[in-house]
Each structure stands twice: as structure tokens, then as C-alpha cells.
């Protein structure tokens, strides 16, 4: 047993209202740069729909992820290593920019510099790639909320085999939103595809990152990732991907997408898993067994043996504690309501989803029946094969009973809580009908409905005791090490810029320890004035320029 910790996420799709706040804040934080215009580390897709990039789920076309060979060995779907190297000069499966969209900007200058005219000037769209005027014909979320679904959503690769059952007339259709980030897989196909070995999985928290200094721009990761969550920065020629906001995670705060999520539908926590079991689990024969196989890799942090092994493998004590409290672990292992996205890609993804019950509830409500009655909901889940089959194509490689079980738990929770909210006694039988105790059901409700910030995000801080690296916390060298001056003048050399905190410290010390009246302080040797430290008495030197005639003013 080799215990490793994995920072992971669960999203409760029932709560996603498709507001794209996560996408926008993520973009502001990470990808609002040249060469990254089309890159969305986080995106929200309307399902059924094409997704981003278009038809990314169609692995017959894109050949992403892993594949079980006839000899029972796992290989990249796009071919073995030799084949990869042979196709290195032109990646045969790289999506073109048109599969994403051509980034553009508007010619705002014509608005700003327009003379007075009879007609309003118009800012025309220009391509950010070629600099030529362009017609905007496609972009991320062009098919948002089933827009143009007759044309686009019917091409959803996940509808294969159930096309005849899914209707796109507005009265009969269904939809939900699917927010997606990098899955930070246990068996990442992007890392396995990288010829340079630049993509790595961090030992400490399992976050998958691209070493920008090692990436050589071979683009194999873009096609290797079945989720199409590695992007090519066309300005720098390097691959970039979702970082799970590691600088934030390291100090114990959630990712930007989770922090800003309006519906509070994201949960972040640690999963302990047995790294030795991953390859076997990813190599089980039947696609539909992959979900159970992956759950089988996870370890129970309450098990004393696991705790001992974890300690032996160098996992700090507070991380084991965090794994116990992890909301992700509870949703995946205790309540079994979270499911992986496309386990059939065999990458062992670690961003899991609670499938939405709302398409079912909506349908029941429209028929005029009580949509919170357990009996009605259970019957509807059975009857409404269409959404359930579609969900199964997304989350269980088509295994309907597993999705069914999860939806029944959610439906049972609805009825169970309604009784309580209406002042009735909780009906233990409802919980028992889905194989849960009343207590568990209530705890699950609490976690899914009203859990507060520190219950939704249980993030142990990183353990390199790296406080000195943080800005202005000068624990790396003694205070006296600053202010020594640099041979190349101010602003050069290491530590040449004295942090304000250090400057304040020195000035206060000087005032408190000098034997002359040090009332006029705040001046600086370097001609800058630190007003933070000026107590208002006198006039610090350098506050005003020296008068040419009568020398320094006092």
C-alpha cells in the first residue's frame, strides 16, 4: 500500500444555475493574457450540447485518454510511444482553433476617435489571430441554454444510441449545466502523452501541472487529454492547464471557481488513495466497473491501518485529519452520491459530480403531481429513461442502475426533509428505502444544502513552511540583513527593495532607542518618505524639495 493524498472536488449539479461566474473569475485570474484568449480552464456547458471544445467527448474522433488492449494492458488510445513520436511533426488529433473559437476584440478606437457624425460609429470585431476584420460566428457557449439546439445539441456525442428518445421540442426537452475544470486525474493521460515529461503530478496533493520551462510545445497533451482541458498558448507556444489554483490551495483557501460559485455547489477536500491500486483499477475489463474500481482505490482515513501507512508514507497528521473531515470523501464514499465524469476514459478523474435530479423533478411538477413525494419521484426516475440514460452516459459509462440509485437517494432526501420541515416526524423508512440511516440522510442534507464555508472547503495548508516566500513576511533573513545597500544601486540584487515592514521596524527602533530628540522621523536615506511612520511632529526630510536659496527648511 502506497498512500497518497489527492486534492479533489465534487460539484452538485442540482445547484448549478449556469451563471458562468466561475468561468469568468477563473479567466480573470488565470487566462486573461495574450495567447490564452480562447482558453477556459473552467467552463460551464449546457447539456445536452456540444461542449467546449465542440464534441470533445467523441473519443472515436479525438482518441483521448486510455484504452485497454486485448492483452489486458493499458495504452494511450492514440497509440503507443513510438506512434506518438512518429506523429510529432503534425499531431493528427489536435483540435483546430475553429473547434474552440477564433478569439477577437473590437476596434474601440473608431468609437473614441470618431468625429461628430449623423450615424453612430460602430466598433467592428477584429481577429486577435490575424488582425483582420472577422465575422463572429462561434464562441464558447454558443449553444448555451440549448440555443440552436436543433442544429447543435443533436450533435452531442453522448446522445449516440439514444437519439430517438431525446426530443428537442421545447416542451419535451431537458437540460442541465455541467461546469468543468481539469480533472487532476490519478492516471493522467496528458502527462503520459507529454514527450518532454513536462506535465507532472505533485506528490503532495496530486495537482497536475505543466512545467513551463520544460514544455517544448509538442501539443501531445492537448490531444491526449480526453477532457480537452490542456490548452495550447499560441503566443508562447506552451501548454497550459487548470492549476487547481495551487497558490491558493497551498495556503488553505479554495480555488477561485469554488470561492466565487454563486450556488455554492463546489466542495473541496482531500482524498487518500492507494497509488499501487490505481493501474489495476484503471485496467478493469468492463467500462461500467470503472466507477466501483476507482472507489476501491480510495482509503478510509478512519482505518487505523490506513493511518499508520499514511504516516509511514510521509502524509502529515493534519492532512489525515483533513481527509476525515473531507466533504469530498463523504459525498463519494459515505453517501455514494458523487460520480466521476466519464470513467470510461480510464484516467481516474478526481473532480466528481452529484448528478442532477432537477430534470426529473421538473417533469413531475409539470404533470401536476407532487414533485416532492417519494413515490412519485421514484416512479418518475424509472419512467424518465431519457435523462437517466443520458446521465449514465456521462457519469457511469452507461450504467443506468448506479445513476438510478443516486437519484433515488436525492429524491428520498427531498421527501425526508419535507416531512421535517413541515413539522412532522422524520420517516426512517424513507431513508431505509435507499439504504441509509435517518441520521446519515440528515447529515447528507446538511452537507448538500446548508454547509458553511469551512465545511465545504476542508483544505489543509501546504507543509513546506514557506512563509518566508510570502510577500513582506521577512522571516527568511534577520531584519538587520536589509538596508545594507546594494553594490549596483537601489533596486538591484536580492532583497534590495526593503519591505515597508522592515523600514517601519528600523525607524521605530531608532526613535525608541536614540538619546537625542528623534521627533523628526519618517525620512529615508534614499530620498523616499515613509509617511506611515510620521507622527505629525516636525517635517520629515525630503517631504518637500529643498528650496534653492535658504537650504533645507526645518
Amino acid at each position, binding site marked *: 500500500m502506497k498512500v497518497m493524498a489527492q486534492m479533489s472536488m465534487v460539484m452538485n449539479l442540482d445547484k448549478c444555475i449556469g451563471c458562468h461566474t466561475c468561468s469568468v473569475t477563473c479567466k480573470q485570474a488565470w487566462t486573461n493574457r495574450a495567447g490564452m484568449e480562447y482558453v477556459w480552464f473552467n467552463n460551464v456547458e449546457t447539456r445536452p450540447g456540444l461542449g467546449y471544445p465542440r464534441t470533445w467527448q467523441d473519443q472515436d474522433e479525438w482518441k483521448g485518454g486510455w484504452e485497454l488492449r486485448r492483452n489486458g494492458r493499458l495504452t494511450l488510445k492514440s497509440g503507443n510511444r513510438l506512434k506518438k513520436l512518429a506523429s510529432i511533426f503534425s499531431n493528427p488529433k489536435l483540435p483546430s482553433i475553429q473547434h474552440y473559437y477564433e478569439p477577437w476584440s473590437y476596434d474601440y478606437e473608431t468609437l473614441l476617435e470618431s468625429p461628430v457624425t449623423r450615424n453612430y460609429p460602430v466598433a467592428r470585431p477584429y481577429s486577435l489571430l490575424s488582425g483582420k476584420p472577422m465575422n463572429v460566428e462561434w464562441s464558447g457557449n454558443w449553444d448555451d441554454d440549448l440555443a440552436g439546439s436543433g442544429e447543435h445539441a443533436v450533435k452531442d456525442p453522448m446522445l449516440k444510441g439514444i437519439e430517438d428518445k431525446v426530443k428537442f421540442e421545447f416542451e419535451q426537452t431537458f437540460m442541465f449545466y455541467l461546469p468543468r475544470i481539469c480533472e487532476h486525474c490519478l492516471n493522467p493521460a496528458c502527462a503520459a502523452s507529454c514527450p518532454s515529461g513536462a506535465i507532472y503530478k505533485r506528490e503532495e496533493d496530486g495537482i497536475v501541472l505543466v512545467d513551463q520551462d520544460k514544455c517544448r510545445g509538442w501539443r501531445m497533451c492537448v490531444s491526449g487529454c480526453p477532457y480537452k482541458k490542456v490548452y495550447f498558448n499560441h503566443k508562447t507556444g506552451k501548454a497550459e492547464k487548470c492549476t487547481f489554483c495551487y497558490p491558493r490551495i497551498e495556503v488553505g483557501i479554495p480555488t477561485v471557481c469554488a470561492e466565487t460559485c454563486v450556488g455554492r455547489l463546489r466542495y473541496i477536500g482531500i482524498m487518500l488513495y492507494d497509488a499501487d491500486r490505481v493501474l489495476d483499477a484503471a485496467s478493469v475489463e468492463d467500462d461500467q466497473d470503472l466507477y466501483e474500481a476507482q472507489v476501491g482505490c480510495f482509503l478510509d482515513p478512519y482505518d487505523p491501518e490506513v493511518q499508520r501507512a499514511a504516516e509511514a508514507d510521509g502524509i502529515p497528521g493534519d492532512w489525515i485529519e483533513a481527509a476525515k473531515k473531507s466533504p469530498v470523501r463523504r459525498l463519494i464514499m459515505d453517501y455514494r452520491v458523487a460520480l466521476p465524469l466519464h470513467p470510461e476514459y480510464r484516467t481516474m478523474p478526481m473532480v466528481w459530480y452529484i448528478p442532477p435530479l432537477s430534470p426529473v423533478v421538473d417533469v413531475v411538477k409539470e404533470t401536476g403531481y407532487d414533485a416532492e413525494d417519494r413515490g412519485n419521484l421514484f416512479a418518475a426516475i424509472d419512467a424518465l429513461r431519457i435523462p437517466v440514460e443520458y446521465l449514465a452516459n456521462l457519469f457511469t459509462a452507461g450504467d443506468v442502475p448506479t445513476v438510478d440509485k443516486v437519484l433515488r437517494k436525492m429524491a428520498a432526501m427531498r421527501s425526508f426533509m419535507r416531512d421535517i420541515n413541515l413539522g412532522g416526524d422524520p420517516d426512517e423508512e424513507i431513508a431505509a428505502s435507499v439504504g441509509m440511516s435517518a441520521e446519515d440522510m440528515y447529515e447528507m442534507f446538511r452537507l448538500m444544502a446548508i454547509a458553511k464555508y469551512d465545511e465545504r472547503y476542508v483544505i489543509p495548508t501546504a507543509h513546506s513552511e514557506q512563509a518566508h516566500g*510570502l510577500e513582506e513576511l521577512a522571516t527568511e533573513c534577520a531584519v538587520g540583513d536589509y538596508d545594507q545597500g546594494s553594490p549596483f544601486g537601489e533596486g538591484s540584487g536580492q532583497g534590495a527593495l526593503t519591505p515597508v515592514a522592515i523600514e517601519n521596524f528600523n525607524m521605530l527602533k531608532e526613535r525608541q532607542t536614540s538619546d537625542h530628540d528623534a521627533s523628526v522621523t519618517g525620512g529615508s536615506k534614499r530620498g523616499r518618505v515613509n509617511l506611515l511612520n510620521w507622527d505629525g511632529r516636525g517635517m520629515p526630510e525630503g517631504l518637500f524639495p529643498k528650496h534653492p536659496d535658504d537650504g533645507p527648511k526645518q
Partner: protein
Amino acid sequence: MALFLWVIVPYLCFAVFIVGHFWRYRYDKFGWTTRSSQLYENNLLRWGSPMFHFGMLGVLGGHIIGLVIPKVWTDALGISEHGYHIIALAGGIPAGLIALAGLVILVYRRRVTGPVFSATTKMDKVMYVFLAAAIVLGVWNTLASGLFHVGGEYNYREGVSLWFRGVWTFNPDADLMGEAPWGFQLHAMVAMVLFALWPFTRLVHVFSAPIGYLTRPYIVYRSRDERPGQGTGSRAPQRGWDKPTLQKK
């Protein structure tokens, strides 16, 4: 003059090549990439790029055989001069022509496809001139001198190759190059300038050929602390974090 052209210039270019690469690796690891433009355009690239690259690999192999392996070795193997000549032409002409055709496709693509042309740097353009010149001259030498014997027969293995190996043993004979046909002289000169430009162009990606991929484990694990000194804290914005600017054409 011959001394300058065929002794001093080669060592100068070689020195720039070595020091330049060292400098580039030390200070511009981030810029060390293929700078692929496949995202912009794939229909032409799909043909041009493999043709050019595989052609060039063949050309490289041909140069190693022709320049590095001494004639006495092939003689010892019992390969006659005529036999060697046929092998060299049979391998060299297709490889050279395929590389040239690939290059033509790629340069055409680069000029005609808007986004690709916009992403072309000045250094790229300079590099293309020398690269194309070197390839055209190389094909010319193979065809004109090797196949049609324009300007008389010339056995480069008794001239250019000896000089080339002399450069490596620090004993180059400038006269050997001085007596070579102009096509060979020009080809060598262009190539030397190209080598001097090499470290400052995208050609550096040649040295990242990912051979290690064949033997390394699929998944790379790395500890967070493996890059000391790369903490958080304030520093100037790094390359790759530039804001997009609209440049109208």
C-alpha cells in the same frame, strides 16, 4: 582569404553556436519551444511538416555518412566508389527533394495563412532565408555535381569531408575547401551562418527531440519543493502574462 573563410569563420560560428545555446538555455528556457502554429492551420501543415522534418532527418543521416565516415571505412567494407555514389544519390535526392517540397509548402502556408504570418518573427524570416538557401544549394550540389557532373566530377569525400573532419580535429585544411566547386563552398558558408543563427531561433527545438519519452514511466511525479527559490512573493510579471493587444491589419 581561404584561411579566413574556411578556418576562422567555422570556429567563430561554432563558438556562437555553443555559447549561444548555453546562454539561451540558461536565460530563456521559457522561450525554448517549437512555437507550433498547428492550432491556426492544419491542412497544409499536415503534409508540409512531416515531409520537411522526415526529409531533413534523411538529409542529416546523409551528411553524417558523407562527412563523418571516412572513405577508407567504406572501402574496407568493400563498397566501391561507384557503389557508394549510387547509394548516396538514391538516398540523398529523395530526402533532399522531400525536405525541399515540405519547406515550400510550409513557407507558402506561413505567408498565406493570416494568423501564421502574424505569428512569424523577424528572426524566423532571417532563419528561413538561410535554411532555404542551404537546402536549395544542397539539392543543387547533389543533382548538379553528383548526378549531372556540371563543371566536372568532384568527389566531396576527398575534399569537403576531409576539411570538415579537420575542423573537428583542430587541423582544418583551408585549401581543400578553396578548391571545392562554388556550390559546395556556398552551401557550407550558408550552413555555417545558419549554425551561428541557430541558438537565437526556434531551431533550438531540435535539441529537445524527446527520445527519453520512449523509456520514461508514463506518469511523472514531482515534489512541490523541487524548484528551490521559486516561491511566491513579488516579482515582475513573467513572460506569457502579457495582455492581448489588437493589431489591426
